Every structure is written in C-alpha cells, then in structure tokens.
C-alpha cells in the first residue's frame, strides 16, 4: 500500500481541528504524500535495539522550591483576549 493511500488528509484535518478547503485537501494530499514517501527511508534501518531520543540532552527531575512568585495580573492576561467580560474570557456556548 502506498503512503498516499494511508494518509487521509480530510480525516487528519478533523483530528487537528482545522478546516481545509477541497483544494487544500487535494494539494496537501499530494504534497504530504511525497514527503511521507521520502520518510519511508527511515524503514531501511534496523532500530529494534535502539532507544528513543525524546530530547537532544536528556535531563530529568529538575526541582525548585515551590514558592509563590509574581505572575501576570488578570488584566495583563486578558489583554490579548479576542472577547472578554467581567474579568473572564468569553467563549462560545458549550452546554445546551
């Protein structure tokens, strides 16, 4: 099965919460199909005994004192809100 057949751009766009036009869907299907075809070369390598590298420099468990520090004020945090009222972010209704 080819990579292009595996990748269903319209389905993935739903998972990503991203509306695509019919033209975008068709274009991305072709373009990303070629990218995945290229990425197929990763399968040439035997990696069964290799560990993942989630980070370039593995550092773990950094601790600091849990002390209160000043942060943004409510006003500063709301300064970029698309809509706000009463010191809160206004969002579309989610419960009928």
């Amino acid at each position, binding site marked *: 099965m080819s990579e292009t057949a595996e990748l269903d751009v319209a389905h993935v766009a739903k*998972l*990503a919460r991203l509306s695509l036009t019919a033209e975008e869907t068709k274009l991305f299907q072709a373009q990303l199909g070629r*990218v995945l075809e290229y990425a197929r070369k*990763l399968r040439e390598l035997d990696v069964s005994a*290799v560990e*993942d*590298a989630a*980070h*370039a420099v593995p550092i773990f468990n*950094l601790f600091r004192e849990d002390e209160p520090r000043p942060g943004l004020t409510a006003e500063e945090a709301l300064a970029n809100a698309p809509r706000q009222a009463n010191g809160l972010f206004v969002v579309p209704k989610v419960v009928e």
Partner: protein
Amino acid sequence: MNGSDLTALSIAELQALLRRREISTREVLEKLRDRIAATEPQIDAYLSLDFDEALRQAERADVNLPLGGVPIAIKDIISVAGQPCTCASRILQNYRAPYDATIIRKLREAGAIPFGKTNMDEFAMGASTENSSVKLTRNPWDPSRVPGGSSGGSAAAVAAGTAFGALGTDTGGSIRQPAALSGVVGFKPSYGRVSRFGLVAFASSLDQAGPLTRTVRDAALLLNAIAGPDPRDSTCLNEVVPDYTADLGRDLRGVRLGLPKEYMIEGIAPEVRAAIDQAAAHFTSLGAEIIEVSLPHTEYAIASYYMIACAEASANLARFDGVRFGHRAENPSNLLDHYNRTRAEGFGPEVKRRIILGTYVLSSGYYEAYYARAQKVRTLIRRDFADAFAKVDALISPTSPVPAFPFGERSSDPLQMYLADIFTNAASLAGICGISLPCGFAKTEGGRQLPIGLQLLGKALDEGRILQIAHAYEQSTEWHKQRPPIGETSNAQRPTPNAQR
C-alpha cells in the same frame, strides 16, 4: 563618519565609539532609523519598529555594560514586553507580548536596546521567509532572491546595515542557513544553552535562540549576554557560562577538523563545493589538521527531523484555539466550528501542512512507523556525532548546498524546501552547537555576488571552541568585510507573495 558607515560597524567597533563618547546612544539610534528609512523599502526585513521606546531606553543607557547602548533586532517569535509578537502569522496579527522572554531580559540587563521585530517564515516554518503571511524579505545581495529562513528578516537586516546584530531562532537551521544566504554570521547554541522561555514554541526539543551578527566576535558578545540557566525553562542547562570572547585570537595549531564524507553529496553547487575545499585548505595553512570523518546516518536526518519537528509543532500549535489570544472566527455555530474556522483562517499553508503531517505521524496506527522510528534514528544520529567528536574538535561543511535561490524556485514543492536543510538538520537533532560564517561568493548570470556559508559544528556546550576556530578563519580572510550593493536596487522588480501554495 556618515550614517551608512556608522551602521556598517560591528558591535565591538560601535561600543568603542560609544565608550569614548564619540557618539551617543541617541545618535546611534537616529542614524539607524535613517538607514532603515532609506533601505527598508528595498529589503522589507522588519515587521514592526518602536524607535520611540528605544529612544526612551537610550536616555538611561549605560555604555559601560557589556552591550551598553547597542540596538539589537529581534525575530518576531521572541517576546518583547509591549511589542507585537506575530510570528508573521495572521493568527497572532494583533497579539502583543505581555512579558519579556528571558533572553530579552538578559539583553536588557547587558544594556542592549531591542528596537524592532524582524520578518520570518510563519512560526519559523520554512527556509526562505517566503512563508511569512505579511511580506517577502529580499536578499540584500540580490533582491530577486530569498534571504534564507526562517530568520530571514534578522539575517537581511544585519547584512543590509539596518541592525548591528539580531536574535533569531534555529530549529533545524533557521539561524545558520539565512546567515549563509545573506552573508553574515549565525550561531546556533547547543540545546539547553539558552533559555526558551518567552519564545513561541515550534518544536520544543529542537528550538534554540541565537545571534546573527557581522563578525564572530559580535556573536560571542551576544551569546555571553543570552546564555545561561533559567528557572523558568527546565530544559535550560544549569551550566556555568564561560566568557565566549576569551579564546578569540588563539591560533589553530593542533586543532583537528573533521570533514564528514557524507556531506560531499551530489546537488552541492560547484561554487559551494569549491569554497569549502578552499576553506579546508585555508584551515590547514592556519595550522589545523583536516581529517575525513563519517556520519553514517546523515541521509536519514531530514526525514527524522521533519517527523519529529512536525509532531511537536502539531502539539505546540494546539494552543492557538481563539480563546485566550489571537485570531477568532466570527459567529461560530458551535465550539467545534469555532476551532476549525479560527485555525483555518489564522494559519498559512505551510503551517497547515505541518500540523496535518504532525497530527498524522502521532495518530494511532502510524505513531510507531513514523514518530517512534524517527526518535530512534535520532539516537543513531547523536551517536554518529559522538563518534566523530572523539576524533576531532569540530566539523566543517557547507551550511547550505546552494547559495540564495530565486523567489518561487522551491516554494511550490515543500519536499524540495525541506531538502535545503541537509547540512543543518542533523546537528539540531543531536543538540550540538553550530555556526555559519561567510567563506566565499558565487556569481549570478546577472553578475551579482551571492554569499556562501561555511558551517562549523561543535560538541554540546563547546561553543567557545567553534567561536575560536571561526574567528581564526574570519580574521585571516576578507569575506566578512564585503557589503551588499544596497542603493543600486531601487528599480528592482518587487516580488509578489505567493498566495496559496
């Protein structure tokens, strides 16, 4: 000294004038503003400028600080309190940063003055700055060509004399490649050397901020200011910052440089190959030893990089949901419609592509085949570098296989654009440090000079070493003294942005 002479100075030279009181910080800013007014219409490097605020800061500038009174341009992905931070995206069109990134706070503490935000590929996704949703930035050496990317505005501004130095970010080459294509110095620190707090995240395991400057010494000065631990970024390494200017001037006797045989691929422009051969010979004449080394997994780096970078991007960009900041779609029928349309309207084509690719490689059924496999290949690439650095002090290679390319040449095919990262992606995956510096010129058919970049890679936290090697090369060559022919380009055809790709 006239204005364009002044704005062509290195940071070190400018500081000498400031400290001798031969010029004031205010005068420097005014000369810079004049230079920008005169040349910016040809280059379009900036997305926003705030000279009023910069001039206020100039009043309090202490020129005896490490970067006292030095104006620095900032890529528009780095938060500067009160300034726009758009990432060249419609989704952040009206966003203003509520706080300073740690590296901006550190720059200010060193006395530097951030005065403007530079153009970039949207969310740092690209290698040409053509993915900016705002405008194209033109290469100061040839206005029909790209400045590289994603930090293309920062690179072009430094090349054009409209910034003494700039900050950029490098996820897979986005400082080094535009530095190479625009003929300036670009430095990518080791992962964790510099705080990421206040940077808009693209790929969190890869992103690093660093300087773009006209000289290696200037890069060391800026790195001195921005490097170091940050309690606000737990991936930032708790390691002492040495003085990166300390070893500048030391000779190269006994230094071993590796030439990775896998990097001498087909597809390198002949002028680039010749310039690198010449640079290797020059290093030998300076007393260094050139050794062929092998990075056997090089050919898998781009595939591994794009799987990982896009996966991380798809997760990071989930925060752009139209709730707390950024663009919001009008009159949604329900919450799902609100998300779907907000993001469709706010993101440009390359960002959408990478979100789709990243979501796909993380999705059930494909995670193992793509993402997990790419992470394992990343381990192999890290081992390649560890083996090489057991034999040599630094690696040398081209930064980009080609000099600056014309607008539109690669933008219609994302894979072709991705392949431009061949020499920079692997180092990003391994978290090591790298620098690009000018090492020659190619000539266009129209007789223009296009800069060629030499990349030096060093092991993690060995920043001082590659700065020393780069400085020895720079100071014994003339490439960095060349300036682009700005002022001769006023009749140039204005390129038009590609609408939908």
